[in-house]
């Protein structure tokens, strides 16, 4: 029994890791006032890049780096189109999703069905990993897990306790006020979009080089969209993103736990999406005001310099 519980928790944490990474990135992007719906595409692109680089070099760390760079680069398209050309952020994000999925399918084709010989290994933290249950869950995971937690804490700290954090948040809330205080709003927005892309790329690489060790088309299976919903649940706060990510990680795992009970796997597969809708509905009923208060005030609006 204890073993089953441990294994569920371990898998929950693993399934939650890409969600956590993606959500952190989207939180940063949206805090600067840019809605990027292209997570699914950027994740996919990161997954294929990470896989190919790991496959060719045999080094999953290089794969991770490549995926981060790939994610940041492809997000640059969104930054250019929405910040410089003031285009509709919803449509641009959709275009980015299509492009990311398309490119990853195109480049990943030769690698379908060829598993990696290496993958990101689990790292055992001495002593701590011997703690019952939690040791296995928290201290005997691969590098992505430790990095995601570390980066998550870093994002939380930077957003809350540094001047950069104040700047980013101000740009999303009131870009005009930031501009009159001498801040380069355009640059901040570009950088935040690229940070979001980098996180999404890394999340993708986790899927293809740590979660599984193969590349399949469509392996992101809607995680990018769940990330966008998670950003709302988290009320745009990095600390709350941790809870959301692992709860949804748990829902991904529960599907497999419940399957032996004879419930249709297809109905179980709906769970993450139903939960997303359910939680949004619940939020809509209970805290419309709070959510409105939390959303960055200029999210999704183009900023035109010098306008009044």
């Amino acid at each position, binding site marked *: 029994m204890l073993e089953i519980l441990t294994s569920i928790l371990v898998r929950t944490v693993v399934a939650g890791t890409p969600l956590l990474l993606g959500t952190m990135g989207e939180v940063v992007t949206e805090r600067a006032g840019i809605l990027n719906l292209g997570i699914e595409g950027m994740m996919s692109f990161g997954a294929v890049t990470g896989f190919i680089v790991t496959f060719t070099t045999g080094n999953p760390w290089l794969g991770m780096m490549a995926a981060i760079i790939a994610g940041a680069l492809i997000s640059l398209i969104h930054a250019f189109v929405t910040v410089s050309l003031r285009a*509709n952020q919803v*449509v641009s994000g959709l275009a980015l999703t299509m492009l990311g999925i*398309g*490119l990853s399918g195109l480049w990943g084709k030769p690698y379908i069905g060829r598993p990696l010989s290496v993958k990101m290994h689990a790292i055992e933290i001495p002593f701590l990993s011997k703690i019952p249950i939690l040791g296995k869950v928290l201290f005997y995971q691969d590098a992505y897990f430790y990095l995601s937690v570390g980066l998550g804490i870093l994002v939380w700290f930077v957003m809350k306790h540094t001047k950069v954090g104040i700047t980013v948040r101000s740009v999303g809330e009131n870009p005009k006020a930031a501009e009159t205080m001498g801040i380069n709003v355009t640059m901040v927005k570009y950088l935040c979009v690229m940070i979001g892309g980098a996180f999404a790329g890394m999340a993708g690489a986790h899927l293809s080089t740590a979660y599984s060790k193969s590349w399949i088309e469509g392996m992101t299976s809607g995680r990018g*969209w769940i990330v966008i919903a998670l950003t709302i649940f988290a009320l745009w706060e990095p600390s709350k993103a941790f809870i959301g990510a692992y709860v949804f990680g748990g829902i991904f795992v529960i599907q497999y736990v419940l399957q032996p009970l004879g419930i249709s796997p*297809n*109905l179980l597969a709906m769970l993450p999406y*139903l939960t*997303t809708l359910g939680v949004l509905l619940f939020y809509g009923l209970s805290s419309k005001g709070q959510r409105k208060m939390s959303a960055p005030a200029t999210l999704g609006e183009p900023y035109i310099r010098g306008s009044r």
Partner: protein
Amino acid sequence: MSFVIIPREKATPLLNFMILISSLCAGLLAVGIVFLLKGVNPFFAIHEIFRASFGSFFGFKETLTKAVPLILIGSGLALAYKAKFWNIGAESQLLVGAIFGTWIGLNWGPSLPGFIILPLMFAGGFIGGGLWGLLPAIFKIKFGINEVISTLMLNYIAAEFVKFLVVGPWKGKTKYGYPYTDDLPAQAVLQHMGNSRVSLVLIILAVCVALFLAFLVFRTRFGYEIRVIGENPEAARYAGINFFRTTLIMMFIGGGVAGLAGVGELSSIHLHLSYPETISAGYGFTAIIVAWLGRLHPGFTIFSGLFFAGIIVGGDAIQMSMGMPATTVNVFNGLILIFLIMGDFFINHKVRYQRRVS
């Protein structure tokens, strides 16, 4: 030295058209670069795509077949996007329409003649897709839920539900080992022209729907109100327009026509419900660009739908002949859409090169 951006007062239809064509060309150029990086001769690939889709009689028939769902869905999306309601859920509105159509066809089909059962199936599909489309409208206006997320979640839910049906309760008794329902009875199947997969009825239906929606948008009170809501919600408030009612009607129609596309695919091509990827080759997503390329004019989606149907058919062709994966179409879609919205910037703004005066 710097670039100065100034709002453009007015874009003439010619300029509009030129920018549209330039955007398309730039998009194709970008696709060419992607092909080049992949080691494929871009001119050859793009030539192949258009040769396969528009260059032969056989190919063109296939293009017409695929244009039907794109036109139906695209014109419905154009309607929603006119009101700035970002419905990304046409894929599942199509599926729910197909579910309703299947149920009616399988249950009532055997005992009714074709001229009754087919209209019933389409009516059912319209209602099914429409009801599914109402959900995000209610979610948005009553609960403040972003329609992009809700329509996407509904996509996944509907897709899983279809899978559940075809491997579970609706699995056909005659379909050993396959995830299909039974085939529709013969009177519930649309006739094809000659030895093609083209159904004349469907083509007429798609064109009529697109023209009807264009009429709706540009000639009716409802369409007028939709355009005012989309262009200036403040003015809509001033003009006393009821947001909730108008959005509900709009999404019922938008979802409904996607449902028609679902029944069309079912009764003309597949003849049974099967996996969602089979029923719809991503039509719901491609139609987003169809609507955008049609400049959100439901009537223009007849042409943009045909164009993208060609790209899908051509994509399939090079997939077979050059070993490209099916998602190559997504590269086309994504790049063309990006360049289209880039083009919008030049429709609305002029860019001048100016020496900075010190």
